């Protein structure tokens, strides 16, 4: 061990020492730090060294802070390799018996010991920092999504902005303008509504899905054609808690291409961003489900929402003279539903933000989880999805270069 350490330190630039644990068995091997390869190669390597070629695995590693983090795509694999020091400790689980709760920590309960250290690791005496807590994606609220990719023309984009109780402003302005459209009579100049300005740091800007000079075509499914600027403004504000805007982006280069096969990468990239919301139900819509599914399946984020959640923001608060504020339920006569803690903030978003941004995952400072880093990383479909991840990653990177950061 000590020798290894010395060797490692002397060759720290070239090789990463790996200690992989599956059940009670350990395997040690090394990887070239400069050329880690792709995740699927790595995954195959693990199956090979453990001699479990047909076992579906969930791969986790202990990061510098002692947290158990998943490895399921190129990005977090590379991250794991680059941050491994002195050695990369891997923990493999059978997918069917995987214990997802072991990943990260539940920030609500904030157990004294991290799950990782309690369950998997020996206590690390040298650790100076308190355990950093990572939330599961389901602890986050979605901030924006692209929806209805399957039914919209490729030149259009339907964006949903979630203005939950958060303080971040929606942050954009609209203006009158004119757009040229092809009609039966030839080209025709028609009045239209355009995004005129983005507020830096606002919700609209942070999603990267809307841009200045994008033409607004619909607001929550209602066409804006023939409506005045003020009317559209009022419509947007009235829908501000759950605003769905269909735009014709001024920049048509990042459009979702739906023509199957080769185009799937781009489509998948956008669509996976849209579907990044993690939830226990409907997981098949999420993340790195098969390429074909990502491209062809209706990416209706709405259908994954419980109906009441759509409505929840619209619920009024009643304060009884003697009691405390409570949200107004729908009249019981109409329908009954499980009582959900509606107006409790879903999670303390700020706490989550800080913890996430300081963690090993690459997370935007504005508290949104970039799709590339984490989207679907913990979903139970990651194993199958990994097959196609390398070229997707490159696609995604190109998207990012265009300033289109897809966020959850």
């Amino acid at each position, binding site marked *: 061990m000590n020798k290894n350490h010395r060797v490692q330190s002397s060759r720290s630039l070239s090789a990463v020492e790996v200690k992989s644990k599956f059940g009670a068995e350990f395997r040690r091997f090394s990887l070239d730090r400069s050329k880690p390869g792709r995740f699927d190669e790595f995954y195959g390597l693990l199956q090979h060294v453990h001699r479990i070629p047909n076992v579906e695995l969930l791969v986790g590693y202990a990061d510098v802070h002692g947290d158990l983090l998943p490895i399921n795509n190129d990005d977090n694999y590379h991250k794991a390799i680059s941050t491994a020091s002195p050695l990369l400790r891997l923990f493999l689980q059978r997918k069917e018996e995987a214990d997802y709760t072991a990943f990260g920590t539940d920030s609500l309960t904030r157990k004294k010991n991290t799950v990782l250290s309690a369950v998997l690791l020996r206590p690390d005496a040298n650790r100076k920092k308190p355990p950093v807590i990572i939330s599961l994606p389901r602890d986050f609220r979605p901030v924006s999504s692209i929806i209805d990719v399957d039914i919209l023309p490729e030149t259009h984009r339907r964006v949903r902005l979630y*203005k939950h109780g958060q303080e971040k*402003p*929606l*942050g*954009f*302005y*609209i*203006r*009158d*303008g004119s757009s040229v459209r092809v009609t039966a009579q030839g080209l025709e100049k028609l009045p239209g509504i355009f995004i*005129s*300005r983005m507020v830096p740091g606002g919700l*609209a800007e942070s999603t990267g899905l809307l841009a200045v000079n994008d033409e607004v075509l619909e607001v*929550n499914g*209602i066409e804006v054609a023939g*409506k*005045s*600027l*003020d*009317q*559209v*403004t*009022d*419509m*947007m*504000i*009235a*829908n*501000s*808690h759950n*605003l769905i805007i269909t735009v014709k982006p001024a920049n048509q280069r990042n459009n979702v291409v739906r023509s199957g096969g080769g185009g799937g990468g781009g489509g998948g990239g956008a669509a996976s961003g849209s579907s990044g919301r993690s939830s226990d139900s409907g997981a098949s819509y999420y993340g790195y489900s098969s390429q074909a599914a990502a491209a062809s399946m209706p990416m209706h984020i709405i259908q994954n929402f419980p109906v009441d959640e759509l409505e929840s*923001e*619209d*619920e*009024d*608060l*009643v*304060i*009884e*003279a003697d009691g405390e*504020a409570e949200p*107004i*339920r*729908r*009249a*019981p*006569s*109409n329908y009954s539903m499980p009582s959900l803690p509606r107006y409790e903030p879903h999670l303390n978003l700020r706490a989550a933000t800080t913890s996430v941004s300081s963690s090993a995952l690459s997370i935007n400072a504005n508290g949104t989880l970039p799709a590339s880093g984490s989207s679907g990383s913990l979903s139970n479909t990651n194993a199958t999805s990994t097959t196609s991840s390398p070229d997707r990653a490159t696609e995604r990177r190109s998207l990012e270069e265009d300033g289109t950061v897809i966020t959850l």
Partner: protein
Amino acid sequence: MKRFRRHGQESQRDRLKQELFQFNKTVEHGFPHQPSALGYSPSLQLLAIGTRSGAIKLYGAPGVEFMGLHDENAAVTQVHFMPHQVELVTLLDDNSLHMWTLRGHKGLSELLEIGRFTLTGPPGAPPSVTRVTAVLAHASGELLLLGTEGGHVFIVEVPGFRELEERNISLDQVAASVPDDYIGRRNLEHVEALQENPINPNQVVIGYGRGLMVIWDLEKQCAIQHIPATQQLESVWWTEDGSYILSSHSDGSYCRWMVGGEDVNEEEEKSDIPYGHFPCKAISKIIQLPTEEGPPFLLFSGGMPRASYGDRHCITVIHSKTHVALDFTSRIIDFFVIRDGLQHTGDPSALVVLVEEELVVIDLQTDCWPVIQTPYLVPLHSSAITCSHHVSAIPLKLWERVITAGELQHTHYSKKPWPITGGQNLAPDPPQRDLLLTGHEDGTVHFWDASGVCLYPLYKLSTAGVFHTDTDPNDNMNQGAEGEWPPFRKVGCFDPYSDDPRLGIQKIHLCKYSGYLTVAGTAGQILVLELNDEAAEQTVEAKVVDLLQGQEGFRWKGHTRLDVREEPVLFPPGFQPFALVQCQPPAVVTALTLHSEWKLVAFGTSHGFGLYDYQQKNNVLIKCTLNPSDQLAMEGPLSRVKSIKKSLRQSFRRIRRSRVSLRKHHVNNTAKLQEANARLEAELAEMELAPVQRKIEARSSDDSFTGLVRTLYFADTFLSDSSHNAPSLWAGTNGGCVFAYMLRLPPVEHRADEPVTAQPAKEIQLMHRAPVVGIVVLDGHGAPLPEPLEVAHDLSRSPDMQGSHQLLVISEEQFKVFTLPKVSAKMKLKLTAVDGSRVRRVGVAWFCSSRTEDYGESGLTVLTNQGDVHVVSLPHVKMQVQYPCIRREDVSGIASCVFTKHGQGFYLISPSEFERFSLSTCHLVEPRCLVEAPLHSGSSNQHRSQPDGASSAHRTRQESEDAEVLQEIQKSLEGDQTSFLENNVKSAVA
């Protein structure tokens, strides 16, 4: 199968909707905005007014009204009735002539445009050659003489507008016959006036701008006489006997010329500058009318000494030794005189003056020439309207008391009946008595009879007497000191200048059963008034209410409270104030309601709301709704900034009005037009440079004015538990918050001494945070709760207190129904999220079916910021119908809208006019009237010339008989089958 049945139900509902709802704009009340021309037909007894916006309006007997609109958006500059016919000709600013007629159709008359015409000159001629400056409708009724800027007179045959070129009187023809010494000096200029000889229609006098007048014989086509006046000509009048011509001039002089047979250059017989010595302004029109015995009446407008009274708008009336300069408050458009007698050739009976802001009629046969109260065309804006309130179905008792109080105020009016009596009003009597109350900037409340087509003033309440104001109440009417010259007399009621903007009335609530009225104003004052038939001297106690309730850190930067008179004030019979609440800070009152059964008044401002017990005269409740982060609420901008803006706007309007004097149209209009176009283009370019953009942001709790109280509502309902109903007060704020208070009222026998208490019961925060504009409680049947005392007066069935009540909260964006007493959301209708429009005005109305009398529904009448009106069903809040009503740019029109309880509404189309509209198939108030063509024989006019006694049954019968005779004639002439129907209508009326 199911689908079919459903379809059937829907179509049934659609049919029902058609039976319940229809949209009509029915009538315009008030005074036309920017009148520009006046015409009168003695034979039809109809008055016509043209406006700058191209509208033409005809008025006869009260209820007889017609309205037409020219397609061209050009000002009407002249209106002329064709003598003894039902046609009239209008001249527009764009030099087009239009022929209108009153056509009978299904027993009613309608105003129709039947022809249009523009003079065409010879090719290559400058446009001035055919620019019409003077129009004479010839007595024959077949000719129109058109004098032009080029000095020619064109003769056109009507109604076909056929130019009779051979009869035209060209300038050359006239100039050739003019004496050399005159023509040598100057050119004749445009045709300023055309008048025919009253005793010989073949002779017309042509007055040229330079002063020369030529009497022309139309038959012989030659000049008979030249009248060589040397001053710039303003108008010409041919006296009744045909022997004199009067001319008025731009230097303030008028001349009288003898009409002789021979062509000699006579000196004027008489010349006078009535207000002379110093330079005077022009006399723009002069009239002289004989009386059967005694000296004639001489009337002229203008002529005032330029330096000292050049800004007055005066008409001088001289009769015998009486000489009065009637001093109007706005610019004189035109005037005419109504004459007695069968052929309207008798003594002058009334002077009708159209000034820019009102119509004034002066009784010339009663001493002192009092004003006759106009039954229509009343200037609503005598002081700017600040709010309005409509009360339907007034009980007869209250109605009579209001009328009595009003009559005492009208004693200075002439007792003579309205002198313009043309046409027959065939509209059925209004089914109920409706009151429209308008609050004004000067602190007055006007009560209008809004039951019928004529919006008639009933009573005027002034609240200024309660307060100390800058002006001394004694000094405003004592003008016209003895021996003053000119002998001015102020007439007219248009007075836009307010003593103190704080007096402005902002909210009104009248209980029609008890006669209690509450009005609230700009400086946070709330007055409670009681109808008293006797004059009373009393002190009004003021109660100051601190709405801030200890909220720290606020400083009111707006106006101060009004000073209350502490000594007893004498109040005339009518509504007399007995209680006064003054809010602190004295912000404008934004919501007000009164419950006469509980004797409570609730009021709200931008800072909070309060509940006042006007029996015990103390406060029951004060609630501050202010958001600590809302600093704007302290500025008092709602009152201050708004009023400054308003006054600025008004002064600009005044300047513009005076600048764009419509006086003469021969000034070159093209230059003006070009200038305007250039300005418009520049404005447009500017707009394109800086595009308008709108911020998209969710409403937050710290927006400004979230605490502003928008609506207050009293309800007897189930607020705390479902078994006991109790009085409650509801308040809705701009921030989407609803406060509910439970009220405890002492038993009736202890009402005077035990306190009324209010406990907070509920607070609802609408998450969409849109301003709450209405709150209604629906009873167990889903019907809105009746008004206070309505049940006690057996005018409404008592509400269903067995079933569960529901709360309807109307915000600008949504209609939401909640259950009571446990507030849970039941139904909603999202308006803004779907439509992009926002609720501006809302009312509860009852709609009757047009087919079955016993079926009706209650619904919400809604006006949106897009100017659309909607009907929303109750209690299911479903959108029923939608109609465009007001232009969305017309913000003040939308803000002024009031709904009635029967699906009608009013909104201001100009500062002085209400448009009335109806959403109901049953409640429609629209003019239905008939005007018949006068016959040339004298007998047909017999009944008209009789003094129009209030209503003698004999006369009515006489009239209807006459009408029948006429009918017979018409029938025989036309052989029309519709006459049968007309006959029926006639007999029904008789």
